[in-house]
């Protein structure tokens, strides 16, 4: 993984000093609430329902075991013994005290971490494929490019006061596991007409109040021009993006109002003037960055399936919670943070420390955070899978539900977030209580349920096969249900099935949707594909046929 050099270390330490001074000035009264808000937000610090919330960057979701131990220690020392992993591969602490935040940042700096630009109207953490470097059919490992973009975007003097937040995702494989089509900019590693390396660039995707799928701005960009092209996009957005209305300020609204052709024309015109002035990525830089992501020292192993003869629980876990690896004898192992009695995406300090130890023992000391709010050990020997499973199961980290209904994406909701209209964690609990039969879950197959407590869509409900959106109806928590959304390479936005339902009726509503699916599905057809084939109508009819609370 990337290791800090003197520049990185210097910048991160100086940022800690800067933030310590800003916090001091705020507490001393020389910065107003409003002035401090603009400063703290660019450093990941929100003021939430109960306490400040600090979001720590995990660049493209990659952690060393040392870093994960530090995250555990921070959870224990400054918070209430847990952290929440997000869809953008970051971690959030919900209970730090404002005056301790500079100390948390200083601790993070010791392990080459920070909270720079994890919130605010600036370029956010760069996200990527959690299977980068280990997945089959990958064109190129996207992480060196993520790191190049991370550095370029950190403290970029021109783009720190954008109209609104700006999220970039980079992928290098045909399967899009980073939801790049619903990012402000998606960067796809592709090959040009003559096999030359470069990128396809998309812009204008996003969720929130106005969900839009990103569109192609450039089909092929030679790789040395990546940063100048991003600068051209950001510059057009910085000058032309709306600043008069917060809900219309994302780049997706600019792209939509100009149309993709006109937006592209402006970006290309700006880029023509910029391409030879701005930073060009040269071969030496690419080679240096790639050097940080060289494959670990894999053993030469036979491909062996370790589940034969083992108990059912292990076999189910192996089937659902591990993924193919490009190196024979290895598997990528998901650590489910979706245990039915835990809020989705949460991990305790003890769990994080155990995972760090297991990473050292079984996966070259590295851990990854997935877009779906789980963790991953990317390089596990198949023959060690059983031993690893036993250790994970003992800590409540082997719930065999990856990719199934209960592997829900879920925002913190009304329990923590000051923006939320409705709870999400308690709805996740209701769903878990209702769907506790694993044979049924496995029979339903691949199913992505995504839940947000408000329009801001941190839980990505628009792109869930089943999406659940919390709405406030006369002071009551209600839930609008969508079906048919998807976040991958075939991204689509879900369709609302009808009037919102009461909290207690959410599980029954889902049960009815699934019953329609089971009635109509063709062999091996996913829920999503059935919805796409037969449309929303049969689902809608069943859900609203009779009182839900039957």
């Amino acid at each position, binding site marked *: 993984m990337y290791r800090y050099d003197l520049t990185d270390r210097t910048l991160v330490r100086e940022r800690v000093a800067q933030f310590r001074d800003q916090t001091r000035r705020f507490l001393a009264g020389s910065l107003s609430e409003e002035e401090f808000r603009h400063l703290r937000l660019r450093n990941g610090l929100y003021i939430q329902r109960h306490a400040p919330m600090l979001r720590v960057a995990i660049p493209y979701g990659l952690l060393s075991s040392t870093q994960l131990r530090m995250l555990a220690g921070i959870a224990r020392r400054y918070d209430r013994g847990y952290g929440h992993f997000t869809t953008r591969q970051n971690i959030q602490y919900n209970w730090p005290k404002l005056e301790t935040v500079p100390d948390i940042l200083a601790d993070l700096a010791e392990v080459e971490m920070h909270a720079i630009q994890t919130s605010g*109207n600036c370029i956010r953490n760069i996200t990527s494929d959690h299977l980068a470097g280990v997945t089959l059919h990958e064109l190129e490992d996207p992480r060196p490019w993520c790191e190049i973009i991370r550095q370029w975007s*950190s403290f970029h*003097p021109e783009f720190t006061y954008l109209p609104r937040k700006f999220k970039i995702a980079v992928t290098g494989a045909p399967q899009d596991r980073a939801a790049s089509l619903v990012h402000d900019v998606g960067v796809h590693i592709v090959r040009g007409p003559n096999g030359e390396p470069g990128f396809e660039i998309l812009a204008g995707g996003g969720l929130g109040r106005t969900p839009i799928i990103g569109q192609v701005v450039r089909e092929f960009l030679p790789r040395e021009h990546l940063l100048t092209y991003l600068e051209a996009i950001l510059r057009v957005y910085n000058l032309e993006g709306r600043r008069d209305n917060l809900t219309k300020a994302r780049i997706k609204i600019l792209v939509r109002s100009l149309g993709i052709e006109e937006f592209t024309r402006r970006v290309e015109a700006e880029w023509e003037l910029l391409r030879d002035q701005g930073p060009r990525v040269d071969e030496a830089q690419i080679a240096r960055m790639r050097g940080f992501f060289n494959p670990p020292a894999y053993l030469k192993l036979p491909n062996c399936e370790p589940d034969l003869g083992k108990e059912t629980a292990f076999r189910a876990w192996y089937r659902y919670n591990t993924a193919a690896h490009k190196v024979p004898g290895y598997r990528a192992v998901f650590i489910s943070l979706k245990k039915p009695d835990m809020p989705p995406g949460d991990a305790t300090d003890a769990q994080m420390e155990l995972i760090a130890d297991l990473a050292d023992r079984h996966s070259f000391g590295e851990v990854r955070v997935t877009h779906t709010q789980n963790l991953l050990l990317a390089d596990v020997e198949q023959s060690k899978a059983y031993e690893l499973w036993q250790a994970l199961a003992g800590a409540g980290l082997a719930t065999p539900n990856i990719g199934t209904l209960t592997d829900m994406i879920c925002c913190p909701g009304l329990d923590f977030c000051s923006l939320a209209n409705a709870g999400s964690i308690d709805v996740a609990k209701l769903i878990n209580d209702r769907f506790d039969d694993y044979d049924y879950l496995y029979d339903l197959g691949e199913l992505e349920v995504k839940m947000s407590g408000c329009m801001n869509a941190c839980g990505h409900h628009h792109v869930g096969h089943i999406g659940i959106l919390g709405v406030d109806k006369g002071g009551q928590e209600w839930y609008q249900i969508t079906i048919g959304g998807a976040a991958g390479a075939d991204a689509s936005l879900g369709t609302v099935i009808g009037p919102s339902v009461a909290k207690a009726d959410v599980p029954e509503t889902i049960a009815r949707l699934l019953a329609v699916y089971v009635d109509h599905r063709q062999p091996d057809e996913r829920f999503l594909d059935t919805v796409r084939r037969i449309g929303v109508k049969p689902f809608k009819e069943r859900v609203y046929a009779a009182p839900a609370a039957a």
Partner: protein
Amino acid sequence: MPRRLLRDGRVVIDDWAYLAETEDAGSAAVRDPVATGLILTFDQWLADKAKWLGTAGRLGVVLSPAHKVEQLAPDLAHLQLIGAEFSGPSEGRGYTQGRLLRERYGWNGELRAVGYVRRDQLFFLARCGFNSFELPDSEIDSAGSAFSTFSAEYQPSNDAGLALKLQRR
């Protein structure tokens, strides 16, 4: 009270006055119209360019966030100061205006940040080519240290060396 500002890393008394300020009988502009430069809004400048070009003394123009730098580009030779206005703490267009003026249009004169300008913006502003800053008087004496908030940077130096020059003082 004469206005103080931070220019090239030093606190100085402003030797420029806005058009509205020249109507104040006690202003420096009225006492010494030749030594005191005249700052116009872009709209004032456009409204009667010939008149302004006919006056003695130095001329400056302040762009509002929505103004395009290219609209002012043909007039640069007549100007000694360009300002970019920051309308509030979330305004960010001026950073692009600054870079464009320095890098694309080769502006070498004074580039001034006006409006909502606070010490925590100075590092970024200087990196975008600004060399003078109208700060609140309460911040002005301590703000100079903000130029050296960071002693390293990830982006290639696009600031015509100004930020670095300021740091060395």
